[in-house]
Structures are given as structure tokens and as C-alpha cells.
């Protein structure tokens, strides 16, 4: 499953990068969202996958029973998901604003150049 996971994560990254290179801002934002998913999965995978067993201390025990999923990356991902959401909400509102001000969602038209 590790190989499959790696492949899936790779695919998500590839999709994210491809979307981020489009001219539409909406696609860019979608790309960022994909990036977020990919990363969460990456963190998850790097911390080794353990099927089904969450890190929960059963009644009567003082520690979870091995093998259990590593709780620390989960906390990390939880933070990342929430922050990612904050960033995403912000970005969605931001593109709306930009669209209202500039009148396009084509990134190529939003540029002040040098020279």
C-alpha cells in the first residue's frame, strides 16, 4: 500500500502543479487546495500508515495498544487542515475582490510590468 500511496500523492502533486500553472485564478486556487490535500497525505504517509488503530487509550489502559497510528502527525495535519481552510477562505474572497476590481480572472491580464 505504501507504493500506491506514494503514487497517489505524486499524482495529487502533479495535478496541483498543473492547475497552478493555468491562467485562471480559480484554477490556481483549486491547485492550491489540491496541494493542501497532497501535503496532508504526505505527512500522513511519512509518519507510517497503520490500519484502523487510532491512538486512543482504552479503558483500563494507560497507553494505546500497539500498533497504533502516530498521533503527532495527526495533530500536525489537523493544524494544517484548519490553517489551509483559513487560507482557502481568504483566497476565495480575495479572488472575488480582485475580479470585481480588475474585471477578469485571467492572471495574464493582472500584471504591472517592469520597464
Amino acid at each position: 500500500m505504501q507504493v500506491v500511496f506514494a503514487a497517489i500523492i505524486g499524482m495529487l502533486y502533479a495535478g496541483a502543479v498543473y492547475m497552478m500553472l493555468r491562467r485562471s485564478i480559480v484554477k490556481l486556487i483549486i491547485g492550491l487546495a489540491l496541494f493542501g490535500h497532497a501535503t496532508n497525505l504526505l505527512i500522513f504517509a511519512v509518519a507510517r500508515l497503520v490500519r484502523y488503530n487510532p491512538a486512543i487509550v482504552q479503558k483500563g489502559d494507560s497507553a494505546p495498544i500497539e500498533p497504533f497510528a502516530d498521533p503527532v502527525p495527526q495533530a500536525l495535519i489537523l493544524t494544517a487542515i484548519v490553517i489551509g481552510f483559513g487560507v482557502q477562505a481568504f483566497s476565495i474572497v480575495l479572488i472575488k475582490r480582485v475580479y470585481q476590481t480588475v474585471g477578469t480572472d485571467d492572471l495574464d491580464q493582472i500584471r504591472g510590468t517592469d520597464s
Partner: protein
Amino acid sequence: MNSALAQPAPIPWEALLPLIAVATTGVVAMLIEMIWPRRSNDVIVWVCIVGLAAAAGCVVYHWNLPALESFGPRFDNAQGSVGGGLFLHDRFGQIIQLTLIATAFLTVIFSEGYLREKRLAFGEFYPLVMWAAMGGMIMATSRDLLIVFLGLETLSIALYVLAGLSQKDKRSQESALKYFLLGAFASGFMLYGISLIYGATGTTNVAGIPALFSLELPDPTAVNVAYAGMGLILVGFAFKVALVPFHMWTPDVYQGAPTVVTGFMAAASKVAAFAALIRFLDASMAMKDVWIPILTVLAVITMTVGNLIALAQKDAKRILGYSSIAQAGYILVAIVAWAKAKGMPNLTIGYETVAFYLIAYTVMTLGAFAVLSSAASKGKEGTLLEDLYGMWRRAPFPAAMMIVFMASLAGVPPTGGFFGKLFIFFDAVNANLVWLALILAVNSVISVAYYLKIVQATLRDPEVHPTKFAPVNVGLFATCFLCAIGLFAIVLFIDPLKSWLGG
């Protein structure tokens, strides 16, 4: 193994007070705006001034506190002690915190006239500046990469909003969008890097990295993952401090954002990010055989590209944008020299060169943007070089100060910028990087040309219609004055300051 676990350290409130003070100030400022919307500008400004002064007071009051780590498990494993607190309160952290507080303070006092002139929202501006400063302060003191990341996000998001503060201005919107998108991207890199470091070391605390490498036989896979994580984290930092080729947002964002925001952004985000970067690198010393060459290359291209492109610019803000890129390159030279010297016998280079340069950089950059902000009028930012013509006659004091700041940025003696560069040059030569020092010198020569453009513009008489300058208000006057004084004061007291910074 459990028996070796020590108790978490008690919470050191005295060290956290500055952070709390700044955050509270932001909240209070926002509440005031909510309770009495649009009628409370002066009150908010005063609240911010008092809050920041209190924060600075807290830092200074606990100045002699021994360096301590707070929040966190200090525990040992079979191989030795690992880990540490989330925060490290040491002299360097205090200095960077003070610098950030000063940056926010000056921004608060000089921005009022600008905001009024451009009719921008006061209510959002001040709290956001406070929180951005707080984010920076967190970055400067944290030992835990996750905390660094949170600080970075707090700083960045506040800055994204600030950049787009000018709702009617397309440039400002463009600036916010680009800054946000690329910034989010960079934060992404950083977070991935952090997760890889976690994967390798089992902790997000930077102390885990030396612990990993100090093992007798470090797990080769873990080592590789640590390298990859380090690389990604470096990319994240490279974005934030605008190293070439991760710099591309800088000029667009600097130009588009309201001038007061640009000044704050240029100073605060660079100082905070460099502080966090050098701490991270300090912990990653074991991997320096990889990152020193990378950073050296980045330093060279950053200085060169920044300076060369700046030559071709016509907008003062854009010039300063590129200049800040080049300046980041100089600081990177200092970092490379510091890292090289670490492995050498009989040679100790501490953080002091970097700290000194960061302080000088903050002062001169902030001053320059403060002066530029006085050129803004209702309709436009007024930062094209032509808009500055005639400044010498209309506003002699800011114009004279502008010359001082430009001279300092260019590294003209006897300003703070000159000594900053001189220290870097020395460190580089001492660390056997004579060629890098020479590249730095050549770059300084190139940079003179574009700083001079700004100086010439302020001295020139306008050809067509003179730009109206907003009347110089007390805040702007005070900021210019304080910055200029700062630039010379640090020169007069270099030795005490440096021993203090190294302390």
C-alpha cells in the same frame, strides 16, 4: 525510558509578556474601532503607541534574564538529550523582538498622514500591523518549526490583507493577490519541509536535527529525509526573504501595496524571516555541507540580479523592492560566512553581524519608505521618480533624510549601512571567502547608481507640473528623524552595540 522524562518547564510569563502585550494591543485597537467606528483614529494610534511601548518595556525590563527555553517536554532518550522548549528566549530573540516592535511603532506613527491622504481604513490597518509584528516576534523566538510556521502565517496573512488595503487601486489588489498566492505556495513548501523533518527526527523541534546527526550511526533514510525537509524549508524561507529566484513577487508586491505597508513589510517580514532562518540553520549545522553551497550560490545571484534589475527601474518603490532583494543577498553572505566560520578553529563569528545588518536595514528601509509615503496624494501613490522631482524644495527635511537613507543603503560611510557591509565583508574574508566578499563589493558599486537615481530625483526641479506633497506631519517627521538618528547612533556606538548583540 519514561523515568528519564523531566517535567515540562514552568511557563515563563516574563518572557512571553511582550508577545501578549502586542497581541492585546491589536485586539484593543480592533475593539475600539468596532465600538466607535470611524471616529477613533487618534485613540487607536495612541493605544498602539502605548501598547508597543509597554511591549518594548517588557523586553527591556527582562533584558538580563538568562536565556531559557520554555514550553515543552525536555526529555532524554537512549542516545542522549533531545528536544527543548517551543521558545528560546535569548539575547538574539530579544533584539529581534525589539527591532520588530520598533518597526511597528514607527509604522504606526508615520502612517497616519498617509492613510488619511489616501482615505484608507484605519480600523483594519493598526490591528493588522500589531498582529503581523506579533507573528514576527513569535518567529524570532521559537525553537519549534511548527511555531515558526504559525508565526510566519500570522505575519503573512496580516500582510496579505494589508497589501490589498487600497480597495480602489488595481495595483494594490494585484499586489495582494500575487503576494498571497506565492506566499501560500511558500508556506506550503515550508510545511512540507517541516513534516519531512518530523518524519526524519520524530520531532518538530529544531533540536531534533542535531540530535539525529549526533547519533553514532544515524539512520541513512532519516538523514535523507532530513535533507529533503531542510531543502523545502529553505525554499519557504527563500520566498519570505526574497532570494533570487524566489524573489519575483517582491517588486510587484512592493510597488502595488500602499507605501506604508510596503515599508512595514520590507522591514518586518525580512527581519523576522532572517532571524528564524539563522536559528534553523544553526540547528541544521550538521547538514551544512549541502546548504552552504546552495546559499552561497543564492547569495551571489540574489545580489547580482537584484542590483542589475534595479538599474532599469523608474519607480522608486520598485527600485527599493529590488534593493531589498539585493540587501537580502548581502545578509545571506553574512550567514554563509558565519556558517563557514563555525567549522574553523580560532574563529568565532556569532549572530552579531547578521543582527547588526538587520537593524541597520530596518532603520534605513523604513525611513526610506516613510519619506516616500509623503509623496502620496489622493489620486496616486506618487512614487515614480518623476513624482519626486522638486521634493528638495517642497519638503526639504524629508528630502535630506532620503539622501541619508539612500547613502546608508548604498553603503556610503559613515552610515550604519556602511558598517553593516563592512562587517559582512570582514566576516567573509575571515572565513576564506575573499571572492564572495569581492562580489559583494562590486555589487555595492552597482547599487550606488540606482540609489543615486532616487537622490537625484529628489534634488531635481520638476519639469512640468509639480507634485503636491502632503504636509509633513509630526509622525513622519519623527520617524525620519528617529531613523536618521538611529543610523548614526549605531555608528557611534558600534562596539558596545556589537558586544551587546553578540552577548
